[in-house]
């Protein structure tokens, strides 16, 4: 239960980080909040030769908000994003989902960008990024690129970041006007990994549904977004409509069983939680 030895460097600027990452190549691993990486090191599930600790890069610790997006820097802690009022005003699903990320003590340390780079399909932030149609700004010594959420996740715990690259920031776009959102999940204990969860967004125009979508947690190898509009398009919000959307969603997921829940149970959770989340989201749609 102790990490194996590694070399460690603690650069203090973006340029230094990128220079070190370029130098160490496939030996390198970025350490931000460490709330997923340190358990993996302690249990020796991961043994990188060189840790590049970005905790001293003060310029990474920002949450910036524009009229239509929230941009989160590589060292912004979950707790910072959760409490940020301008971010809540522009994209309230962030706070709603963050309140379900582990426990407050973990959120004091863990970073939002780090949890996305970790690419865990049971992570709430990966689901929010996918549902908002967000993107990751990637920096390397050779230059920058922007990766859409749909292209960022390659598999469980696997992103399309290359060696030498840093996830420098993440952009969460706002939902269209007239939208409401919700995040619900079921876990064995509060703060545990969810057996199933989802973020939902419903858009109403003149009192009828014009869009209903959901982004799921823990039912797919990479973040899954389903467009459920066809079940409820043009209808006023109703319990029967949300149940139909839940049924539609349940037919489109193919969850894996594990020791926490069978595949059938997870599919049932998709059915029930989808209806619940869409109803809650619609209640918030203007």
């Amino acid at each position, binding site marked *: *239960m*102790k990490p194996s030895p590694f070399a460690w460097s603690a650069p203090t600027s973006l340029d230094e980080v990128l220079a070190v990452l370029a130098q160490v190549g496939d030996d390198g691993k970025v350490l931000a909040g460490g709330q997923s990486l340190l358990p993996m090191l*302690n249990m020796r599930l991961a043994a990188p030769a060189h840790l590049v600790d970005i905790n001293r890069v003060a310029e990474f610790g920002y949450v910036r908000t524009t009229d239509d997006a929230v941009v989160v820097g590589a060292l912004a802690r979950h707790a910072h994003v959760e409490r940020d009022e301008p971010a809540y005003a522009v994209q309230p699903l962030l706070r709603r989902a963050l309140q379900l990320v582990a426990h407050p003590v973990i959120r004091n*340390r863990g970073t939002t960008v780090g949890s996305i780079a970790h690419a865990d399909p049971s992570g709430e932030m990966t689901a929010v990024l996918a549902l908002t149609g967000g993107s990751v700004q990637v920096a390397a010594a050779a230059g920058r690129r922007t990766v859409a959420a749909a292209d960022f996740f390659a598999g469980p715990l696997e992103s399309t970041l290359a060696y030498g690259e840093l996830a420098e920031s993440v952009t969460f776009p706002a939902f269209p006007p007239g939208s409401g959102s919700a995040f619900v999940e079921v876990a064995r204990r509060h703060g545990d990994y969810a057996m199933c969860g989802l973020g939902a967004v419903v858009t109403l125009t003149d009192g009828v549904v014009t869009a209903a979508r959901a982004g799921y947690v823990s039912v797919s190898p990479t973040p899954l977004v389903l467009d459920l509009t066809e079940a409820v398009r043009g209808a006023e919000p109703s319990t029967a409509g949300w149940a139909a959307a839940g049924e539609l969603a349940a037919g489109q997921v193919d969850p894996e069983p594990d020791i926490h829940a069978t595949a059938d149970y997870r599919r049932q959770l998709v059915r029930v939680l989808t209806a619940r989340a869409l109803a809650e989201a619609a209640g918030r749609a203007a």
Partner: protein
Amino acid sequence: MTEARHEIRLVVNGVPREATVPARRLLSDCLRHDLRLTGTHVGCEHGVCGACTVLLDGEPVRSCLLLAVTADGHEVTTVEGLGTPEAMHPVQQAFRECHGLQCGFCTPGFLTTVAAYLVDNPEPTEDEAREAVSGNLCRCTGYQNIVASVLRAAELSRDTSGQEVGEG
């Protein structure tokens, strides 16, 4: 190969401390082994149990999920920094009054977590108190007396308001 060692400086419970550690030294082990502050307990070492919780610049964090070298230059408050047997912290007083501990292994993590929580949430409801300790595991008490202790600590803190927590 000899493992590289790094000199670090921490302010622990208000006292400047120095240590020379390999990069892989966890803050929990640095506190216990290098600085001989064994009040911080180590349970699971993967962030689940909460026994190792300390305050980093006043905020509760898992010391088993933080490298000592990352904490270089920062302030750490351990359970030893909360109070003394003669002048207990309100949270310590409350755990004593309400029998909020049995074997005591998990207690340092509860005390640091609750001390920081009450600074931000001085008047929790019972439900909020329960959620406040949901990231800390106790295998003895069944939690009822711990929740009672949180509520009692909030009362005691209000009685002695003005007492700052977490800056050692």
